[in-house]
Each structure stands twice: as structure tokens, then as C-alpha cells.
């Protein structure tokens, strides 16, 4: 009796091994797909990390300087990189506005005549800044930095009129702003975007690859052969998921060490085994989504469309673009249904913040519950269709 059971298990495992090897072989023969997978885990993440920056970076600005004094030049001089870049002077407002319309410059500063005179006499004076806010985020940043620059300039000018110098700052009542940015001290966008892109790539591939492997059998009719073979639906499914998991995990490892750590100096603070374990769990959960998609479609084109439909809310509700606190109330609760939400929290937590399970246990629990639910649903649908 016991021997029989053991033999059954051995047979089961052997079938799994053979089928997993078959899936891997099939994948390795699709050269275009292999190329795409390699690209996604290396160059794609590198491009995302090195290209995107949501910081105001050398925003071009032009000036109408009607004063041409020492004071106005000093003010203009302060609009310099990294945030702004002076693109010269224009003579009148209309040619400045034309540049703004064409999108050649982002801001136009107008310094009135007698700017220096008023400043020296202690009369309040104003400079006007017109900002292109068609990109609201950068417009806000530009306004904020310009405010800081002009504020500091005014403050310095005021100290001068009162007869105080930088050195006497220690004898003034004021708040010394000592801010520190944790986890990413230089606010290096590359760290954020490279990790975000890696997680997106993992999500896309772990949905598409198993789904594609399944639908391909449907399209070619080979699924009929599989279903008349002595294999249970689970035995057909699991090798597909396992082989793709292997590929994705390998890709993730390459990406974490080669791109994140080597190319972008992401610190990798936390425990890497924990990170890979979490990744495995995540791939497993999202593969369930792929299976559901596979049962719903007849060909790969449909899988593709369905994947995009599913992917959009998953990414959106993950907190990459809009963290939970900024979400409107209804969507905030909906985030609990996006597996990526838990993975993002854990991924950034482990890699950047260096925290462990004592803090992340709730996300892990959430992902486990949601993941098993999705996977069970996928298997159920598959069984119903082919069992």
C-alpha cells in the first residue's frame, strides 16, 4: 500500500519534471520571445531607471529685464541649474509668450524698471513670473522653487538693508531647517523607477507567459491531446506555471544584481532571500490571473487585450503612481485587491528601507490570501473547462 503510494508520488513528480522541461524547451525555441524576456529584465529596466525623472531639471526660463541693474542681474543669476536654466533675455512680453506657446521655455520672468532703486530704498517691489503649467506637476515644482529663490533673495537683501550679514545669522531667532530624506537620501529617481519597472515587468510576464503557454495549446488544438493523456488538469497547469516562474525568478535575479545594484547603486538593504521568496509568492499569485485570462480567451490576441485590461487597474491600484494616502476613499479600499500593492510595499520595504517581516507581515499575509484566492480561481476555471 505504502509502496504504491510512493510510486504514485514518484510518477507524479516525474511527469511534472518532464512537462516542466518541455515548457522550458518550447520557450527556449521561441527566439523572439526569449530576446524579449532578456530585454525586459535588463535594458528595459535600465532605460526606465536612467530616463525618467519627475524633478524639475533645468527648466528653461527667459527674462525681460527692464532694470539692467546689479540687483536684477543678481536675482536672474540665481535661477540656475539644477532646477532652472537661463535661456537668455527677450525684449518684450509678446516674444516671450510666443516662446511659451511653442513650448520652447517653461517660464518667463519680468523684472520691472527701478527694481534696484526700490530695493535700496526699502520699498516693496515685485517681479512677475509666468509659468507654463500645462504639465501641472512641473508647474507646481517650478512655482515652489521660484518662490524659494526669490524668498531667499529678498531675505538676503533685507538683511543687507538692516545691516546684518550672514555671520550674524547665529544671533537671530530663526528655525534651522534640518531635513533628512530617508531611504533615498539624494532622491535618486533611478532607484524608484528602476524598482517600479522591475515589478511591472515581473507582473506583465507572470501574467502573459503562463497564459500564452496555455492558450497556445488551445489554438493549436494540442490541448485535446493533453486532456486525453493520463494527466490531471493540475499536472498540465503546474508545469506551465513552474517553468515560467523559474524563468522570471532568474530574470529578476539578473536584474536585481546587474541593473539595480551594479548600474544604479541601489543599496539592497534588506534580506535578499526574503525578497526572492516574496517574488516567488507574487509570481504564483499573478500566474493565477494569467490562467483566468487563458480560460477566457480563444487565442493569444485576446489574451493580450485581456492582460492589458487587467494590468491597468493592477498597476494603478498598486500605489506606484498614487500612494494610498492620496487615493480617493473608494479607490483606497480597492487597493487591497491589487496583488501588486502588497508586492510594491514589500519590494520597496526590503530593498530600500531594509525592513523585515516584523513590519511587513501584514502585506505578506494579504498577498498570501489574495494570491491563493486568485490561483484557486484560475485552477477551478481551468478544471471546469478541461477536467
Amino acid at each position, binding site marked *: 500500500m505504502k509502496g504504491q503510494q510512493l510510486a504514485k508520488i514518484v510518477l507524479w513528480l516525474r511527469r511534472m519534471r518532464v512537462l516542466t522541461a518541455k515548457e522550458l524547451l518550447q520557450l527556449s525555441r*521561441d527566439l*523572439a520571445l526569449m530576446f524579449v524576456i532578456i530585454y*525586459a529584465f535588463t535594458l528595459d529596466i535600465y*532605460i*526606465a531607471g536612467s*530616463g525618467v*525623472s519627475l*524633478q524639475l*531639471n533645468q527648466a*528653461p526660463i527667459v527674462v525681460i529685464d527692464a532694470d539692467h541693474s546689479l540687483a536684477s542681474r543678481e536675482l536672474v543669476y540665481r535661477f540656475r541649474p539644477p532646477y532652472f536654466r537661463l535661456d537668455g533675455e527677450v525684449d518684450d512680453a509678446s516674444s516671450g509668450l510666443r516662446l511659451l*506657446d511653442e*513650448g520652447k521655455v517653461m517660464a518667463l520672468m519680468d523684472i520691472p524698471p527701478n527694481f534696484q532703486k526700490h530695493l535700496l530704498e*526699502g*520699498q*516693496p*517691489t*515685485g*517681479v*512677475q*513670473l*509666468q509659468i507654463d*503649467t*500645462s*504639465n*501641472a*506637476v512641473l508647474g507646481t*515644482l517650478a*512655482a515652489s*522653487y521660484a*518662490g524659494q529663490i*526669490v*524668498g531667499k533673495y529678498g531675505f538676503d*537683501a*533685507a538683511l543687507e*538693508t*538692516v545691516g546684518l550679514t550672514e555671520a550674524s545669522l*547665529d*544671533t*537671530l*531667532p530663526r*528655525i*534651522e*531647517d*534640518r*531635513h533628512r530624506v*530617508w531611504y*533615498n537620501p539624494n*532622491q535618486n529617481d533611478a532607484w*524608484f523607477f528602476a524598482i517600479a519597472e522591475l515589478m511591472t515587468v515581473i507582473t506583465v510576464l507572470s501574467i502573459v507567459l503562463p497564459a500564452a503557454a496555455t492558450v497556445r495549446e488551445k489554438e493549436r488544438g494540442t490541448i485535446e491531446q493533453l486532456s486525453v493523456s493520463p494527466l490531471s488538469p493540475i499536472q498540465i497547469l503546474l508545469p506551465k506555471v513552474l517553468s515560467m516562474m523559474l524563468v522570471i525568478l532568474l530574470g529578476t535575479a539578473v536584474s536585481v544584481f546587474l541593473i539595480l545594484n551594479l548600474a544604479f547603486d541601489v543599496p539592497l538593504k534588506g534580506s535578499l532571500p526574503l525578497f526572492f521568496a516574496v517574488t516567488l509568492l507574487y509570481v504564483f499569485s499573478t500566474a493565477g490571473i494569467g490562467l483566468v485570462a487563458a480560460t477566457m480567451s*480563444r487565442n*493569444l490576441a*485576446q489574451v*493580450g*487585450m485581456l492582460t*492589458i*485590461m487587467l494590468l491597468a487597474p493592477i498597476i*494603478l491600484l498598486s500605489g506606484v503612481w*498614487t*500612494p494610498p494616502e492620496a487615493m480617493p476613499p473608494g479607490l483606497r479600499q480597492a487597493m487591497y485587491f491589487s496583488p501588486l500593492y502588497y508586492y510594491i510595499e514589500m519590494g520597496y520595504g526590503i530593498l530600500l528601507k531594509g525592513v523585515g517581516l516584523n*513590519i511587513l507581515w501584514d502585506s505578506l499575509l494579504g498577498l498570501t490570501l489574495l494570491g491563493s484566492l486568485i490561483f484557486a480561481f484560475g485552477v477551478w476555471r481551468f478544471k471546469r473547462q478541461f477536467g
Partner: protein
Amino acid sequence: MRDRLFLTLAFVVPSVLMLVFGYGIILDVEKLPFAVLDQDRSEMSRDYVHQFMASRYFDYQGSVQREDELSELLADSKIRLALIIPQKFQQRLSAGQPAPVQTLIDGTFPFRAQTAKGYAIAINASTNADLLARFIARTQGITLQRAAAMVSPVRLELRYLYNQELNSRWSVAAALIMFILMVSPPFLTALGVVREKENGSIYNIFTSTVSRGEFLIGKLIPYVGISVVNVFILWFIATVLFGAPFKGDPLFFALASVVYVICTTGIGLLVSLLVKTQVAAMIMTAIITVVPSVLYSGLLIPVSSLDAAARFEAHLFPAMYYTDITLGSFIKGTGLDVLWGNVVMLLIYAIVLWTLSLFLFRKRPKV
């Protein structure tokens, strides 16, 4: 086109993307959760903290007693900013001395960290101006009002052009049209053509008398048609649901969009000629359309702020030219007189893509 799911998805996917991203991407940084460690517990420190509480940019989550509680809250993403006011805050300020205040900011989202820092600096600057004005008024014996004017002699008048309310949803909506029309037409086209390759029905074409040009055009007209309909649907969502203004010339926008859609279907066509399987077509399209349209299009970063290499790449993709057109037509209210160069670039792009496809498409592929 018998494939009904495929057809509905061709229309439903773009709209869903538009709705989901339009409602979901909130780039305005507001209500940042923060916590306070007030070691001074004086009247002045409470006043100072109150400025953060009163600001709509911050959302007070409570006070803690020890510093390690703050780091735990930050690690768990429960708060994004922590404020530490050391002892003797009031004592130092009253004695005319500087008092340090520490803010700890969660840098996981660099853009949000940067904005949060800006808000904190602004609050500190206004507090400082206030403190200094009181100090000057007291030491030099002038009125507080006059001292306040002395402390901030230069006033910055900000005028927001085009998007006066700094409504990021408007910017996002206009940019999303660019993004969706960049991604969905190539997908449809590439998948549609490769599907014929995969199930072999393309051999019917190979053996028929249809010429290469006829086949390509016949194949693509439906996809261009679908995408043009989508332009209208997206335009409708942007203006009616998101309330984005449309200040430009509708006719110009419609024509420019058609040219753009011809470009993007051309990309799909090119992909379909290069790959053999639908999976590969899908992933390849995703890679060559999503990355440039997010990174090098001006969607997030204006092209003028990119570094030289990225700026070069931006000029290679059609997305950048069309972003200017959507932003111009929706928000800025500019038309052909300013944007004609962009339309010409799109036209050139379309012609190049289509000619290239014509050359690549062989009726009898080498086996």
C-alpha cells in the same frame, strides 16, 4: 473581424485605460501623513506644529513619545514625514538664537519627497520671516508692519499660464490621449497581422493575386478606422468627464490625430513583419511603444529638460510631436501656426514607416 471579443476590446480597452488612469493618477501631493515628536512641549512649539496641521498639504496622524516610534512608522509607510522639535525650542528662539528642527522624509517616492520638502521649507521660511520681523521690530523700535515689509522686500507674482488651477487631471487627460493612441493601435495591428501568419491564413494572400500594397492597405484601413473612432471617444472622455478645456481648433486636432494614428498603426505593422508569434508581437509592441511614450514624449518630463541622449531619442519617436499637439490643442489653445512643424514630422514618420513595411513585406518569405 469576426472575433467579437477582439473587436470589443479594441474599443473598450482604450476607454478603460483612459478612465482608470485619468481618475487614478493623482500627482498632486496633498494630505501627506505626518507625525510629531515634540520634546519641547511649549507654546511656541505647539504653534509651529499647528502650521503643519493647518496646511492642506499635510495630514496630522498624531504625536509620539520616542524617536524610534517615528522610524517605525516611516518604515511601515504609515507616515511620510516626521517632525522632531528638540528641547529648548522656545527658550532659544526667545533668547534670539536659532533653534534646530528636524524633518525626516520618506524618500521612497523621490518626487513626493521633493515636493514635501518644498512645503516644509515654505512653512519654515514664513515662520522665519515672521520671527525676524518681530525681532527687528523689537530691537530697532519700528512697527511690526514696517518690519514685515522690510523682511520680505521682493514679492513674487506668479501667473499660471494655460492651466490656471494647476489641475493635474487636465494635464494627465491630454497626455493620456497621446499615450493610449500610441499603445493600442500598434497592438491591434501587430496582433491582427501576426495572427494570420500564425494560423497560416496568410498563405491565402501569398497565393492570391492581391499585390503587396493592396494587402497592406486593406489590412490597415480597419485598424486606422477603429483608432480614429477611439480618438473621438477619448476626446469626449477628456472634455466631458474630466472637464479638461479644449481651447484649440477641433479640425486641426482631428486631422493631426489621424496622421498620428496612421503613424502608430504603421509601428504595429512593422512589428508584425518582424516577429513570428503573437506573444512576441505583443511583448515587442509593448516595449517599443510604452517606454518611449512614457519617457521620451513629454508626458512626465518636458523634452527640453531631458539630457542630450534622451532628447535625441525623444525626437526619434512620434509621441513627442503629438504630445505638443494634444497639450497645445487642449490646454494652451495653440493651432496650426505654432504646431505645423510637428504635423510635418508626423507625416514624414508615417511615410517612412509605411515605405519600410512595403519593402519588408515579401509575399514569399524565405523559409
